[in-house]
């Protein structure tokens, strides 16, 4: 039997707060990331994604429960855990912004106890791979968001980790940068690394993951295939239209699979559906009625969760 990259059982983390009720950031979470797998942790803001990543990377202690990374306990075997992981916390922070990309990586490499000669080669290789070689000797503060994030990933890879923890790595990136980033993730998977990637973006979860766990309110609601997530995105799609006459609105309401037809203040009509193929029926009805100002948009994660959790009869929080 191979050891799972991540094995979490009954993991709970409570934050005590001044003059406030303690907050349960993680509530008895069970999660397994198999070796070589890209596992998505999909959840809205405040779901507990970062808290879980911090615990797995040994920088935060759990209140109770256990977590093993590469078979090592994150509380007791920190040294072994740290040797086997790379972490990428999303966002702007976490780099020495006045220093150059190369200087940053050389320091992190020292913190992974690599001899200078090895470090130099490894840093050059990573800079090249992340497409940062040309800007390697520029201060990080002059970098774009996407470049900073690639530098973060290079930093995460400095110790040649078996397991990568990526916490919302594409947050704030432009779409092109995010797409490039995802192909990098696919490459890393090809090298046999195990990856836990958190996101609140369903499309991202669908496109890069082998499995996706849904987290909300500190609880893991379930684990799904990316295809299922993709299905939800079309199943719960939303259609917006302008200049929709009242009789057409009534027609829309009567269509099977239409859950709501809401008229917003600017006379825009927002149609929500909750069945496969319903969005197409809505579009056809609108076009047939001569309505041309029509657009579709993805449902928000919160909406999908409401549907999914509702369908399964689970209570939120």
């Amino acid at each position, binding site marked *: 039997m191979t050891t799972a990259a991540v094995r979490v059982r009954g993991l709970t983390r409570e*934050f005590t707060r001044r003059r406030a009720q303690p907050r349960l950031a993680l509530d008895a979470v069970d999660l397994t990331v198999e070796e070589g797998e890209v596992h998505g942790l999909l959840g809205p803001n405040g779901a507990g994604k970062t*808290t879980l990543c*911090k615990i797995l*990377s*040994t*920088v*935060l*202690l759990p209140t109770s429960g256990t977590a093993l990374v590469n078979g090592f306990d994150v509380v007791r075997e920190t*040294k072994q855990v*740290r*040797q086997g*992981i790379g*972490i990428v*916390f999303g*966002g702007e*922070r*976490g*780099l*020495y*912004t*006045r*220093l150059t990309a190369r*200087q940053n990586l*050389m*320091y*992190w*490499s*020292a*913190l*992974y*106890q690599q*001899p*200078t000669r090895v*470090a130099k080669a490894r840093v050059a290789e990573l800079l090249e791979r992340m497409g940062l070689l040309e800007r390697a000797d520029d*201060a990080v503060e002059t970098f774009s968001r996407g470049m900073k994030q690639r530098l973060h990933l290079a*930093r995460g890879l400095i*110790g040649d980790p078996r397991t990568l923890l990526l916490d919302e790595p594409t947050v704030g990136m432009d779409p092109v940068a995010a797409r490039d980033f995802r192909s990098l993730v696919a490459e890393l998977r090809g090298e046999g690394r195990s990856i836990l990637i958190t996101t609140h973006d369903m499309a991202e979860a669908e496109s890069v993951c082998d499995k996706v766990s849904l987290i909300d309110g500190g609880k893991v609601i379930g684990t799904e295939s990316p295809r299922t997530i993709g299905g939800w995105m079309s199943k719960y799609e939303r259609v917006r239209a302008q200049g929709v006459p009242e009789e057409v609105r009534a027609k829309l309401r009567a269509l099977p699979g239409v859950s709501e037809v809401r008229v917003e203040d600017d006379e825009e009509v927002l149609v929500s559906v909750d069945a496969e193929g319903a969005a197409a029926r809505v579009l056809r009805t609108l076009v047939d009625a001569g309505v041309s100002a029509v657009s579709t948009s993805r449902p928000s994660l919160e909406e999908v969760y409401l549907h999914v959790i509702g369908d399964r009869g689970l209570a939120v929080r």
Partner: protein
Amino acid sequence: MIGLFLAAMRFQAQVVRREPDYLMSLVTIPLLTVAFLAIMGNAGRADLAPYAVVGAALMTIWATALFVSGELIDADRWEGTLEGVLAAPAPYQVAYLGRIATVTVISFLGLVESALIAWLVFGVTFPVPHAGLLVLTLACTAFSMVGTASIMAPLFVLARSARIFQNSLSYPFYLLGGTVVPVVLLPEWLRPVSKAIFLSWASDLLRDCLRAEEPVAAPARLGVIVGLGVLGFGIGHLLTRAVFKRVRENGSVGFA
């Protein structure tokens, strides 16, 4: 371990080069050399010139430890790099010691600077009758300064109002450390306090190295300087561990 220490030293040198405002005390405090020398000259005590030079230099060294080394962990906290440091397998204590060592070495330029100013502005030169001992004393002083600064860096993170604390460790310590005014000239009740501070031993011995007569009990005094430095490393080690323990318990923000 040595590799990490050296890499951290190099890293800090790069930080200082990129952020020269770290060296403010090297710019401001030597002005004190001028002030001290002017006063002493006016009072007809040109013989006290070495006191002025040593005093201004030690103030620079102490201030740099306080305001640069003392900030290192806190700065990592604000940059968001602290968690990365904690999540790396290397002993973070060694990394911070390396960084502090660079800051300390640079701060010793204050001594060269003071001596140069004394010479350029006032034409003051002075012989160094005990050059070997002076070099040894400087090395021991640097060692203990690193040890003492390793207390400051975690202390300012752990202490509630770090700023107030920091400022209150500057002027009182210039005094208790006998940087300018030798400790023997302090009120009697202050002297025992001052004996617990390595700086007071260092400044006394440095001044003695510049006097003609043979410094008394030099090896023992060097031993005290080093011993207090070692004590500093020990306390610094424990406090740094306490900082990181707290980070792990509370999450990195929302403490102090």
